[in-house]
């Protein structure tokens, strides 16, 4: 369940969408069980399914989010709660992830989940050296974002 929730959290900002996505992932996992290839780790197989469903779902659903996300006057008047620096950093990290493109987002989740470059390359279907280069770029972007925040 953990993998499903982590992926859903990164691809959907809305709770309702998140529940829908988790449901879809579970069905796909269920329907794909007979295709499981023991040559891969179970987590690799699970990540592939979850991320594939999430990316497809995200593509369909962005239109819906745009339709329903509207900043009203009321929203802007809500006082911002005092947040600790740590909480702010978590928000910043989540915001950073939410702004990434679909495939970069998948890569970022796998990197943060401490997956090896070899496993990431198996999940995404790209070479290990390519994984390294892409992660390096994402880390640079993330660093810039945090350093701007710290200023």
């Amino acid at each position, binding site marked *: 369940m953990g993998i499903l929730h982590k992926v859903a959290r990164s691809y959907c900002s809305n709770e309702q969408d998140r529940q829908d996505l988790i*449901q879809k992932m*579970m069905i796909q996992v269920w329907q794909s069980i007979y295709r499981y290839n023991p040559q891969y780790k179970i987590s690799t197989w699970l990540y592939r399914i979850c991320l594939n469903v999430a990316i497809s779902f995200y593509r369909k659903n*962005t239109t819906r989010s745009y339709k329903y996300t509207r900043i009203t006057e009321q929203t802007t008047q809500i006082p911002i709660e005092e947040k600790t620096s740590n909480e702010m950093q978590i928000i910043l990290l989540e915001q950073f992830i939410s702004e990434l493109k679909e495939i970069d987002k998948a890569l970022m989740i796998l990197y943060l989940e401490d997956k090896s470059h070899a496993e990431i390359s198996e999940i995404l279907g790209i070479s290990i050296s390519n994984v390294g280069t892409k992660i390096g770029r994402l880390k640079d972007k993330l660093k810039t974002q945090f350093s701007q925040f710290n200023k």
Partner: protein
Amino acid sequence: MNELEVKKLWQETNDKLDKTLARHQLNTKELFQLKSFHFISSMKPTKFFALFTGFLWVGLGVFILGNMFIYTLPETNKFFLFSASIQVFLTALALIIYLYQLITIYQVDISDPILKTQKRIASLKTSTLWVTRILFLQLPVWTTFWWNTKMFQEWNTFQWVITGSITFAFTFLAVWLFINIKIDNKDKKWFKLIFTEKEWTPLMKAKNLLDQIESYHDEGKENFNQSHQ
């Protein structure tokens, strides 16, 4: 902020998530009370409907035109016969593409690597453009099916100029659209006029995803070349 700190932050959000899940006793049973679903299944009903009506149209066309070719060819209006045959042939071609899309939908293996699966789904979306291109090619035959030999004997120049211009304009438009309906022209006004937002948005998203996938592959090639120099 270094790598370890960022990963620690992510772990903290995971811990929070675990706690929330435990607190709400997230109902797995509820999640399993599911409607029948396939993640790309929403593409299917329209394609099935298109296939069904398409087969009816083509089937009927083949039956009627076939009979004309076999039994009444000498007395049949050739303009009608050939225009209708071209129309039915082009519709059949579009049907084959639809069929190909439907088969591909069933063949998508969701447990394949992300880039492979997503490329397949996105390519499927953009192949919809072929159907539109082929269907537009039918335009000229809709202006010629009613022509007949009598026209050649009785019509004056003015009537021919009008009829000929319309057919020429439709032919030009059909060929021009066939050549130009491609994803590279997505930002052109006429392109947005042809496709409604409902058709256009998924196409654009599919194209963006294909671009992302391409950028991953290009980078992979660069890395490969560098390591082999």
